[in-house]
C-alpha cells in the first residue's frame, strides 16, 4: 500500500485510532476505579485484626496500582489530545456542552493523582489509621471520575441541555441538564458496576493462577477472596443494571436496539436471535431463534405482544443542523449492526457465565464457609480476568457502534466531525506500536515486581512511581517496612 492510498479516508483512520486508544485505556479504568477500594479492604483488615498478610497485600497492591495508574494517566492524556486532533469539528461546535462533565472529571482526576501519591508515599510516614483515610479519597475520586466521563458519553447518546442557533452554534447551555442527561443514570451505573466487576475478576484471576501453581498460603487466599467477593457481589447487580439499561435503549434509542436484537422490521412477537447475522438484503440468517423472547424482554408487561422497532422504523431526520438522512441511514449499517449484535451476544453470554460462577461462589460460602475448593473452580476463576475484560469491551462496542452514524445522536455524524488531516494513518500506526510496547511492558513490569517481592519476601518503597526514592544513595533513611502496630 502506498501512502496516498492509506491517506484516502481520514474518517476511518480517525475512527480506528480512537477505538484502539479508548479500547486500551478502558482496560486500565477498572483498576484505577476499584483497586483502591480492594486495597482499603485489605488495609482495614490489616489494622483492625493486626493481620500481616493483609498488610503485605495492601502494600503490594498499592504499588501495582501506582504502575497501572501512571499508564492510565498517560493513555488518558492521549485521549484528551485526540478529542481535538481527531474530532476538531465536533469539539469546536459541541465543546461548550460535551466539555462540562470533563471539567468535573478533571477535578476528580486531580484529587486521585494527589491521594494516590500520598497513600503510596504514606506507608512509612503516616499513622496507620490516618494513612488508611488518605486512601478513601482515591476511591471516591475514582468513582466520580469514571461517572463524569460516562456522563459525557451518555450525553453523546442522549444530547440535551443546549440550544443551537441558526448557524448550528451552541448558544445556550444548561450544565445540570447536560450532566444529568436521560441516559446518564443507566450508563453511569453500568460502567461503575463494570469497573468493580472487571477490577475484581482481573485481580482475583492472578491469585487463582498462583494458587493453581501451588501457592496456597494465606496471603494468596486473601488476595483471591477479597477481589473475587467484590466481583461476585457486583456481577448480579450488574445484570440487573444492564437489564434496565437495555430497556432504556429500547424506549429511547430504537436504531441501536434494532441492531442489538437484529430486528429488520418493526413487529410484535419478535424472536431473540442468538448469534446469526443480517445478510446483504437486510434479512436475518443463521443463529438460534427463541420465539417471542426479544418482545418479552423488551417489556415483560405486554409480553410477546410488545412491538420491537426494526431498522426501518427510525425517523428520518433533517433537523438539528444535521444532513437529511433516510430512516435506514439514520442507524447502523448492516455491517455495523452485525458487529453490535455479535458484541451484544458476547457481553450477555459472558456476563451470564460470570454471574453463574458468582452464584457458585456465593453458595459455597453459604454452605461451606469457604470458596469452592475444586481445581475446576480455580481454573475458571483464573480465566475471569480476561473474560470480564472481553465482556466490558463488548459492551462498549455495543454503545459506540450502536450509535453510528452519529457522534452526537441526531445532531452530528462521525464523518462530519472528523479531521481532514490526511496523516492520521501514520499517527495510528505509530500509536499502535507505542501502545503495544507500553502494554507488554506494563505486564512484564508488574510480573517482575511480583517475582522480586516473592523472592525477597519484602517490599521496598523505592521501586514504585510516586514512592520516595531509594534515599540510601542520598544518605541515611534506608527503606524499611514497618508493620502496623
Amino acid at each position, binding site marked *: 500500500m502506498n501512502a496516498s492510498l492509506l491517506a484516502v479516508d481520514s474518517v476511518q483512520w480517525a475512527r480506528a485510532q480512537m477505538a484502539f486508544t479508548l479500547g486500551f485505556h478502558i482496560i486500565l479504568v477498572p483498576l484505577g476505579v476499584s483497586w483502591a477500594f480492594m486495597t482499603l479492604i485489605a488495609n482495614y483488615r490489616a489494622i483492625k485484626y493486626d493481620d500481616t498478610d493483609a498488610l503485605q497485600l495492601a502494600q503490594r497492591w498499592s504499588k501495582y496500582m*501506582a*504502575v497501572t*495508574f501512571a499508564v492510565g494517566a*498517560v*493513555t*488518558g*492524556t492521549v485521549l*484528551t*489530545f485526540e478529542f*481535538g*486532533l481527531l474530532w476538531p469539528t465536533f*469539539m*469546536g461546535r*459541541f*465543546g*461548550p456542552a460535551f466539555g*462540562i462533565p*470533563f*471539567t468535573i472529571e*478533571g*477535578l476528580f482526576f486531580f*484529587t486521585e*493523582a*494527589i491521594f494516590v*501519591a*500520598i497513600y503510596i508515599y504514606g506507608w*512509612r*510516614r503516616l*499513622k496507620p489509621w490516618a494513612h488508611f483515610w488518605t486512601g478513601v*479519597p482515591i476511591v471516591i475520586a475514582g468513582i466520580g471520575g469514571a461517572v463524569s466521563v460516562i456522563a459525557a458519553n451518555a450525553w453523546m447518546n442522549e444530547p440535551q441541555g*443546549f440550544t443551537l442557533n441558526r448557524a448550528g452554534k*451552541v448558544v445556550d*447551555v444548561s*450544565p445540570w441538564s447536560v450532566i444529568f442527561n436521560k441516559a446518564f443514570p443507566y450508563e453511569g451505573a453500568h460502567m461503575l458496576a463494570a469497573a468493580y466487576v472487571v477490577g475484581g475478576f482481573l485481580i482475583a484471576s492472578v491469585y487463582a493462577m498462583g494458587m493453581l501453581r501451588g501457592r496456597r498460603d494465606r496471603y494468596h487466599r486473601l488476595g483471591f477472596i477479597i477481589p473475587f467477593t467484590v466481583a461476585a457481589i457486583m456481577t448480579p447487580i450488574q445484570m440487573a443494571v444492564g437489564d434496565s439499561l437495555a430497556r432504556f435503549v429500547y424506549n429511547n434509542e430504537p436504531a441501536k436496539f434494532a441492531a442489538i436484537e437484529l430486528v429488520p422490521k418493526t413487529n410484535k412477537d419478535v424472536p431473540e436471535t442468538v448469534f446469526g447475522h443480517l445478510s446483504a438484503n437486510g434479512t436475518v440468517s443463521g443463529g438460534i431463534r427463541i420465539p417471542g423472547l426479544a418482545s418479552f424482554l423488551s417489556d415483560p408487561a405486554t409480553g410477546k405482544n410488545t412491538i420491537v422497532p426494526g431498522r426501518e422504523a427510525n425517523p428520518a431526520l433533517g433537523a438539528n443542523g444535521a444532513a437529511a438522512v433516510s430512516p435506514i441511514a439514520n442507524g447502523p449499517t448492516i455491517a455495523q449492526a452485525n458487529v453490535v449484535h455479535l458484541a451484544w451476544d458476547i457481553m450477555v453470554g459472558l456476563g451470564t457465565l460470570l454471574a453463574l460462577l458468582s452464584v457458585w461462589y456465593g453458595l459455597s460460602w453459604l454452605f461451606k464457609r469457604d470458596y469452592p475448593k475444586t481445581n475446576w473452580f480455580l481454573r475458571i476463576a483464573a480465566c475471569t480476568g480476561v473474560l470480564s475484560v472481553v465482556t466490558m469491551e463488548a459492551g462498549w462496542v455495543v454503545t459506540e457502534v450502536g450509535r453510528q452514524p452519529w457522534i452526537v445522536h441526531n445532531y452530528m455524524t462521525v464523518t462530519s466531525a472528523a*479531521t481532514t*488531516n490526511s*496523516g492520521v494513518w501514520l*499517527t495510528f500506526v505509530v500509536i499502535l506500536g*507505542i501502545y503495544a510496547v*507500553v502494554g507488554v511492558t506494563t505486564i512484564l*513490569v508488574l510480573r*517482575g515486581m511480583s517475582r*522480586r517481592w516473592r523472592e525477597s519476601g519484602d517490599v521496598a518503597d*523505592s*521501586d*514504585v*512511581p*510516586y514512592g*520516595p*526514592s531509594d*534515599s540510601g*544513595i*542520598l544518605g*541515611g533513611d534506608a527503606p*524499611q*517496612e*514497618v*508493620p*502496623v*502496630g
Partner: protein
Amino acid sequence: MTNATAVVLFFGVTAYALFGGADFGAGIWDLVAGGAERGERPRALIDHSIGPVWEANHVWLIFCLVVLWTAFSTAFSSIMLTLYVPLTLAALGIVLRGSGFAFRKAVTRPRDRRNFGAAFALSSVLVPFCMGAVAGAIASGRVPSGGNAGDPWSSWINPTAIIGGLLAISVCAYLSAVYLVWDAHRIGDTDLSEYFRRRAVVAAVVSGVIAFIGIFVFRTDATYLYDGLTSRALPLVVVSAICGLVSLGMLLRGSSMWARLFSIGAVAAVVVGWGVAQWPYMLPESLKVAQAAGPTGTLEAVLVVFVFAAVVILPALALLFTLDQKSLLAGEGGADQTVAATGKPGAPR
C-alpha cells in the same frame, strides 16, 4: 465572565509551566547527567524530588486542555486543526515520558533502567519544545480561526515558534535546576547543590539570551505580540527580567531559597506577559477571547468547578507538597519519623 474564565485558563497555563515545566526540566538534567555511575547521584535526587508530585503536576495540562475545549471550544478546535503535528508529537512524548518514568522506578536491571530512563529523558526535551512551539505559533498569528486549517508545517517551523520551543526547553531546565539546588541544599548535600547551582546559572543565562534574541525575532515575525510586549505587557516583561537577574544573582551568592522564589516570579511573569501581550485575542488578529468564549451557562460551570477545585484541590496539593518536603528532611538521617509515627522500629515481620 469571559475575562474571568480566560484568567482561569491562564492560571492553569502558568501552573503547568511552573510545576509541569520543572518536571520536564528534571528530565532534561537526567538526560545530560552522564553515564550510569557519574549520573547516579543527580538522577537519584531528581527521582527523589519529582517522584511523588509529578502526576499531580501533569494534571495541570489536562486542566488547561479541558478548560480550553469547554470554555473556548472554537479556539481549541482551530489550534488542534492547524497544529496537529507538534501536538501529536507532544502527546506521544507524554506517553513515553510518563510510562518510562513509572517503569524505570519499577524495574531493577540496569539495562532496563537505562532504556526506560532514556525514553523518559528524551521525551522531556521533545514535549517542552512542542509546547513552546505551539505557543509561538499561536502568538505569531499563524493559527487561523473559523474551521480553516493553517499550514501544518510552516505554522510551527518558523522563527517565533522555534524561539518559543527553545525558550520552553531552557526555562524548564532553569526552573528545575533551581528547585534541585534547593532540594539538595535541604538534604544537606553540598556537592549536588553546587552541581545543580552551576547548571542553574548556565540555564538562566541561556534563557536570558534566547529571550533577548526572541525580542528581535518577534519584532519582524510576530508584530502583534511584539507590540503587546512593548506596551500592555511591558511591566510584566520588566518584572520578569528583574526577577531573572535577581535569581541569577542569588544563585551566584548561593542563596537557593531566594533564587527559587525569584525564578518562579520570572517564569510566571513571562507566561502571564504572553497572555497580556496578545490580549484581547485568543488567536492573534483572527479570534478574540470574547468571540471564542462559549455560552454563559458553560462559563459559569467552568468557574464554579474552578472555585470548588480551589477549595478542595489546593489544600490537598499543599498536603502532598508538605509530605514531599518532609521526606527530604527525613533523608538527612536525623530523627526516624517512622518510629515516631508507628511507635515501633522497623522490625522484620
